[in-house]
């Protein structure tokens, strides 16, 4: 036996030498669990970025491979025998390039009329066309109801509205689970399984690195896995199309929990609760917004709630890192302006006929003004910028006018000038932009620490729970990009950011086949907020933009931010 051990010792020594060359020094490890932890990190830091990339790729492929069915809601029969199918709830008729139903007859106006399906009925609104519109021989003043079989005359051109056959729109209104392509379902299942595995492996890493600090960690993650699986099962029943937005939401929430477990394990339960509330809010918004009329009433509810939030914030706001954006009600504390984001986007929505006729944006402009003034008063410059950006985007969706766009942007320049004059401390912050390294230990402290952490992580990260950025203030919120890079690697951090970029891009794709402009504007507004938040957070924390202290949707620690993110995601999803 001794002889055997002697024989073995030589190759063992050689192995130790090789391992030492790789930076693996076994003799320094004291306990067995520590040993397991080290080896686990060694393997997992390669595996996780790879899995994240695969998940992103699968989401992309699902979107690309999707067959978009365009079942008509009805037909317009022209005297020539031509049948034009109506595939949307809102249809612009005219000879213009952007009309949904293009009829190339010179007497028609470019934007002649809008044919809308609402309240289970069809409506025709004349857009003040030259030739005018008639229904069954009666001139349309403003709006007129249409039944199947009615004759519509646009500048003398007659056509008749017919139902789409047995599949009347009313029946189609309800979701038919069988229409959901089964192959896509399986693809979604696999992606979910991958996400769960990713989160499971990540949770073990954090537990091995930080287990002592967070004894409840396994239970929290287990509950989270159950929660997202349950949500998936429920939402699958109501989804018209793929579940890519939800899957990305789950993935990002998992990252959020991994970050929180590393930075402040004590708040894990609170964060899990926020995810739960977020998912519920998401489901409710989706269910309500499915019906356009209910969506309209939802809008007013949110706007009123939004106004209340603003008043509440102005009255009770508490300061946190310079911005007075927290409310503490004793039993709960939150950031009201996060929820106003949803109200803001909804206030900006309009339906196509309204868009093209009245162009009345007074309510939206008023709400925007109120929000931005509130943000200015509570000193939250970053969020003010986000609201302003979303305002410009939504206004452009309304008007399509490049000149107005420039008007807004020059207005913003003047606004910026006013800020510089009246708020010198913000001006000072701008003056330091791009000079973080010159003031590495004073005003550039957070940015330089973010860059140091990001570089220290390399491409693969030093392992979850093994970073040092956590000790810097706001590491898991404003500097969360640095934390992701340091602990999980630049590759994984970039994939996570690209997931949210992908969500925004998804909103663009959805507008093409959207039933109503209401959903299209809401989706684009939400996407704009996502992108602007990321731009200000990621590029701000590495000194490529002024550092304004905003969160990354989903990933940053914070209950209000998490719930608001799910709410905004619901607005994107509703556009399906």
């Amino acid at each position, binding site marked *: 036996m001794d002889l055997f051990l002697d024989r073995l010792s030589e190759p063992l020594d050689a192995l130790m030498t090789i391992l030492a060359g790789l930076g693996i020094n076994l003799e320094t490890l004291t306990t067995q669990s520590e040993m397991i932890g080290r080896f686990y990190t060694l393997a997992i830091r390669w595996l996780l970025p790879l899995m994240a990339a695969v998940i992103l790729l699968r989401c992309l492929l699902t979107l690309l491979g999707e067959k978009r069915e365009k079942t008509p809601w009805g037909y317009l029969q022209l005297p020539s025998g031509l049948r034009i199918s109506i595939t949307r709830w809102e249809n612009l008729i005219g000879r213009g390039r952007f009309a949904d139903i293009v009829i190339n007859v010179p007497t028609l106006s470019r934007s002649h009329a809008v044919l809308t399906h609402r309240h289970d009925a069809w409506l025709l609104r004349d857009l003040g066309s030259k030739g005018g519109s008639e229904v069954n021989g009666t001139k349309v003043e403003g709006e007129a109801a249409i039944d199947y079989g009615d004759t519509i005359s646009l500048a003398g051109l007659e056509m008749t509205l017919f139902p789409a056959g047995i599949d009347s729109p009313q029946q189609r209104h309800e979701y038919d689970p069988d229409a959901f392509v089964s192959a896509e379902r399986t693809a979604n299942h696999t992606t979910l399984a991958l996400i769960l595995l990713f989160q499971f492996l990540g949770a073990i890493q954090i537990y091995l690195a930080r287990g002592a600090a967070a004894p409840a960690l396994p239970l929290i993650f287990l509950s989270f896995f159950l929660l997202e699986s349950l949500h998936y099962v429920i939402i699958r029943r109501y989804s018209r199309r793929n579940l890519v937005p939800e899957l990305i939401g789950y993935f990002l929430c998992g990252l959020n929990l991994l970050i929180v477990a590393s930075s402040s394990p004590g708040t894990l339960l609170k964060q899990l609760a926020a995810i739960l509330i977020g998912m519920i809010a998401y489901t409710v918004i989706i269910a309500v917004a499915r019906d356009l009329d209910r969506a309209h009433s939802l809008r007013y509810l949110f706007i009123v709630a939004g106004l209340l939030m603003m008043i509440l914030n102005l009255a009770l706001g508490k300061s946190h890192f310079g911005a007075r954006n927290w409310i503490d009600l004793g039993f709960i504390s939150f950031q009201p302006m996060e929820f106003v984001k949803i109200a803001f986007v909804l206030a900006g929505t309009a339906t196509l006929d309204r868009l093209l006729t009245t162009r009345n944006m007074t309510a939206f402009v008023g709400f925007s003004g109120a929000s931005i003034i509130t943000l200015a008063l509570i000193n939250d410059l970053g969020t003010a910028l986000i609201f302003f950006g979303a305002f410009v985007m939504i206004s452009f969706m309304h008007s399509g006018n490049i000149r107005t766009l420039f008007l807004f942007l020059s207005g913003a320049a003047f606004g910026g000038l006013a800020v510089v004059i009246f708020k010198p401390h913000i001006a000072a912050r701008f003056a330091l932009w791009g000079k973080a390294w010159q003031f590495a230990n004073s005003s550039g402290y957070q940015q330089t620490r973010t860059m140091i952490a990001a570089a220290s992580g390399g491409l693969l990260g030093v392992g979850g729970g093994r970073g040092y950025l956590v000790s810097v203030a706001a590491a898991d919120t404003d500097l969360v990009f640095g934390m992701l890079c340091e602990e999980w690697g630049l590759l994984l951090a970039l994939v996570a950011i690209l997931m949210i970029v992908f969500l925004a891009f998804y909103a*663009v794709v959805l507008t093409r086949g959207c039933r109503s402009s209401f959903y299209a504007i809401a989706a684009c507004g939400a996407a704009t907020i996502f992108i602007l938040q990321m731009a200000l957070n990621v590029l701000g924390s590495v000194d490529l933009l002024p550092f304004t202290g905003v969160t990354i949707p989903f990933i940053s620690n914070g209950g209000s931010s998490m719930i608001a993110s799910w709410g905004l995601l619901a607005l994107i999803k509703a556009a399906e």
Partner: protein
Amino acid sequence: MKLLSARTGLLITLILLFVLGLAAFAMQYFDSAPAWVEHPSNRHFYTDGKLSNLGTIYDRGGKALLQMSDGGIKYNEDPAIRTALMHVTGDRDGNVETSISSVFKSDLMGWNWLNGAYRFNSEQPTGGTDLTLTLDAGLCAAAYRELRGRRGAVGVYNYQTGELICMTSSPSFDPVFPPDLTGESGDYEGVYLNRLFSAAYTPGSVFKLVTTAAALEQLPDIDKRRFRCNGEMEVEGNMVTCPAAHGELTLGEALAHSCNTSFARIALELGAEKLQEYAERVGFNSAQKVDGIHTIPGRVELAHAGKAGLAWAGIGQFTNTANPLNFMSLVGAIGNRGLAVAPNIVARRGFLPAASAGAKKRLLSENTAEALAKMMRNNTIAVYGESNFKGLELCAKSGTAEVGEGKKPHSWFAGFLDRSDYPLAFVVIIEGGGSGSGSAAAVASAVLHRAVK
């Protein structure tokens, strides 16, 4: 609805702008990440602002040149090696910008692109990445000794593999016992400058190699021509002179005797444009990188030189400057049949061979390089004396660069060994050293004899 789809263009623009911003960050990251991690606040590497671990720098024979131990820097025990290699290891305060410990600091700290600061056992400072250099510490010390306190630099490298085996720059000092560098005498002026990498001198006659290369390729039948030297030549009221009248010469003889009037004539015949083109082709006006260490480029600017200026430029005396390392690569390329192999200094990082070794670039055609090599061999036999370079198969060119009234000229000697067992190219520059074939050649002889031992 189509209307709204068209208007999503603004959102798409916003998304693209953000992706561009991300790309800008990625570029910044790949440009600056090594510098970021070196910040003393980085707790992955520093404890209380002090580096907690650092790899060791070894020479090619495994001699430790610089080592981190117990929070302090430990240098080689031999003061001669420490002094000769001060510009490689850097001083204690990191004043030498081109030193290995400055340029490769992040590597020595144990950082790399893939793994970042990751260590298997992060609580245990197990040392950074070790660097093994191509340099031979003993040879460097010998070269420094041969300079005998005169300002200047010596470089020797393998022109087939690019390995820099000897490098030293004077003045220097022992980093363990730094003298009073601010003394009145001015002895230590520019002491932090590695003169091989970061200085550029008037080349004098060594530049005739560039003029010859251009002549060989651009002037037909140049090798059959005869030049007449009567000791002086007037160009637009300017006198170009030789020490004595050389009489009738071939191109090779003109190079061997460094005949100024002949080369002034060749330069005028070539024209400013062609001479400029060849100077730039062989590396003037562009900085070189030695494993990421920047070097200073030599300069040739002939656009507004005029005829007299062009004549002087052809013999290396106009406003031209040459960087010693760059010039060494040029003579190395002549030795390697026209193919320049980029010099490198890091042989191994950790237990991996360095990636950048031996990037090749053709400077001269094979025929031109061969012809130049023959002439340079002839220089040794006819002028410098084969007995001084016994067995070295030396091909070389000397230079005595005038630097102004009342100042001793700079002494240059550059060339290569035509030996397959020791394919070495070298450069020696001594500031105010006088005759190139005298003082610089003597240093070269001693260093090269030691190198082939």
